């Protein structure tokens, strides 16, 4: 499933929306994209700040959870970042006009806590790799 209608999967709305396109592959794997526009809230001197990438990954994970909830006939709810681990940042941050592509895998899930691992790239270059726990 691929959608540009992210707002049906996560509660975030512009200007804080950080996912343009979402693809659900299987229960434990998904992909997302974000093309940086000039009005993005997480820009500094034309480049994205690291917090923007983390928010993008968190919203990717939230969309994955949201899609699963939607398919189960449940409401999409607000989630929270619980923890970030094993985080490595690339040397260059994406700039306006570039597209960030993220692959996210669910590592484990216990109740309403989900741990994911994610890698974001742009033009084939790794921007960030991390593990993130979300509570929803």
């Amino acid at each position, binding site marked *: 499933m691929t959608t540009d209608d992210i707002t049906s999967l996560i509660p975030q709305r512009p200007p804080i929306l950080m996912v343009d396109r979402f693809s659900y592959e299987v229960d434990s794997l998904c992909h997302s994209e974000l093309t940086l526009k000039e009005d993005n809230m997480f820009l500094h001197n034309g480049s994205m700040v690291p917090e923007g990438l983390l928010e993008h990954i968190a919203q990717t994970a939230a969309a994955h959870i949201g899609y699963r909830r939607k398919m189960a006939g449940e409401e999409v709810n607000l989630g929270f970042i619980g*923890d970030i681990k094993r985080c490595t940042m690339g040397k260059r941050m994406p700039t306006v006009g570039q597209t960030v592509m993220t692959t996210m895998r669910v*590592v*484990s*899930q*216990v*109740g309403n*806590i989900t*741990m994911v691992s994610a890698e974001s790239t742009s033009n084939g270059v790794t921007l960030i790799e991390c593990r993130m*726990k979300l509570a929803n």
Partner: protein
Amino acid sequence: MIKKMVSILASEFEVEEDVITPEANIKETMHLDSLSLVDMVGLVEEEFGVEIKTADLPTIKTFADLYDYVYKNQK
């Protein structure tokens, strides 16, 4: 398997290996809360290929319970 499990858990949760005894309570020994419990579940799946189902978690109280679960469910 037990030696590897003890080593990995001690390293991940920053406890001494000798406190991880078969009869010790997992949550108390490794100071696990609901957020860090998911770390242990992920670690077991990645290192031993065993998925701990949420419904089974209440039955895994001690390290002996965990070893038994992994042993029985390893492919």
